[in-house]
């Protein structure tokens, strides 16, 4: 309830700001319900509310894009009856997360050149293979990469639809699954009117592990030997503790 009220408040603030800005140079204004997603022990994925306002003209498209990573796609081949990893293609500049949200069907008002230059839609992502790969193979592996990402819930299968209220306000939710890649995300918003980008806005969203989870991850990678020793000590204590507990009860 409190959250709903505060979000309504935020929305109202945006609305006011939006109407004020509409007359000047900011025809589209966007904000998120939070700019930091904390991955804690109980994290099972989270929804972030995205909301904003336009001057009343045009359509809005929002791209939620995770940090660029490298990815390797391996092709499974049947060898002597069993499936083994065969050929592989490595890609760079792969967004770890990618979703498109729009106020309407993109085909109707977003020209292809605009989609290409702004990388709107998975098919327009500038994912490049590393090394010398022939174009047909690269395309096949690139499609496989996108399928894998979609299956994991990291890429959207279709663009999400944003609801518009009163012709000016739009809002939508973005779902980040439990295994969401960490890092700094970019939320790119475009206001399209008459097949042109009228206005755009870029906003960061940070997703990171916090608390004990973050500390454990850091220690495991920065002080690996110490982490290993601690893991063994914990195991020995757990074994001794369990044994003593049960011996007393006998």
């Amino acid at each position, binding site marked *: 309830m409190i959250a709903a009220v505060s979000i309504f408040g935020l929305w109202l603030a945006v609305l006011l700001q939006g109407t004020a800005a509409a007359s000047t140079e900011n025809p589209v204004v966007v904000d998120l319900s939070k700019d930091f997603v904390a991955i804690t022990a109980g*994290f099972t994925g989270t929804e972030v509310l995205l909301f904003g306002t336009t001057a009343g003209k045009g359509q809005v498209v929002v791209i939620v894009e995770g940090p660029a990573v490298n990815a390797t796609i391996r092709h499974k081949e049947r060898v002597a009856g*069993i499936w083994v990893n065969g050929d592989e293609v490595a890609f760079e500049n792969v967004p770890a997360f990618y979703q498109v949200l729009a106020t309407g069907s993109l085909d109707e008002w977003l020209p292809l050149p605009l989609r290409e230059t702004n990388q709107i839609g998975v098919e327009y992502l500038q994912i490049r293979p590393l090394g010398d790969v022939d174009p047909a193979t690269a395309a096949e592996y690139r499609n496989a990469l996108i399928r894998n990402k979609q299956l994991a819930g990291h890429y959207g299968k279709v663009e999400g639809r944003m609801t518009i209220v009163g012709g000016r306000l739009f809002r939508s939710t973005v779902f980040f699954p439990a295994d969401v890649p960490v890092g700094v995300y970019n939320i790119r918003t475009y206001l399209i009117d008459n097949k042109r980008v009228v206005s755009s806005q870029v906003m960061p969203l940070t997703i990171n592990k916090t608390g004990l989870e973050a500390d454990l*991850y850091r220690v495991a990678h920065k002080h690996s030997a110490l982490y*290993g020793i601690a*893991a063994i000590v914990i195991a020995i204590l757990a074994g001794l503790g*369990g*044994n003593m507990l049960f011996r007393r009860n006998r």
Partner: protein
Amino acid sequence: MFLYLPIAEISVNVIVFLSLGIAVGTLSGIFGVGGGFLMTPLLIFFGIPPAVAVGTEANQIVASSVSGVLAHWRRGNVDFKMGSILLIGGIIGSTFGVWLFRVLRELGQIDLVIMLSYVIFLGTIGLLMFVESLRTMVRSRSGAGSRRKLHQHNFLHGLPFKMRFRRSKLYISALLPLLIGVIVGILSAIMGVGGGFIMVPAMIYLLGMPTSVVVGTSLFQIIFVTANATFLQATFNQTVDVVLALLLMVGAVIGAQIGTQLGAKLRGEQLRILLALMVLAVCSKIVYDLVATPDELFIMVTGAAH
């Protein structure tokens, strides 16, 4: 109730993994095996990345073995001398195994090697145990049960460096337990197992140790070998998830106590048939996964940008 695992980087159901720990812990208590040969494939079936399953399971086995060995120690069922020889081999083997694990991981073949190792060892051991137990049961039922000789003499007794193992009532070459230790150590690193399921039959059939000391001695050795594997996996591969390990430990420690007491009340041959059937069931599931055509023929591995 869900918990986010910091190293596996996924969210898991606490109840499911606690139950897994208790179930596998009970079996490990009964049979004196670390339980890793069941737990590691189960963890993978439940979505834990194979590399993390292997590293974490090594850590968990340290706990269940510490807990289990105390019960056997109190009854005097640990041959420390034999255990130490096995241990020296185990340290050599597990160190080599972790290095091999890293090389295979970089080649993208670690998952396949883990699975194939399971098929080969579970299949062989399961079948051998099954046939052996059936034969013994049939023999004891027909009433012609002749007493087994303490051990048979074969070429293994011609090896040098003979040592006397009082607790096991054996006078054999130290090279044999050393070699068994090395092999089990490699398996412990690559498969995320204590190696009890290999070592127990090897101690009974190859070394000719009395069944009573086999379980305690293998547990004693497993503690140190899995501790070594845990340390090396954590240091070189960062694949030990302590949160997951702790979850499994709590379940396994409870299970191991139940199992040790159950094991004392049940008959040996029936137990061995039961274990053989379970080993074969896990083996069949892995074979199926290797042979069945996957839905997606391309798999993805991500890493941070260079």
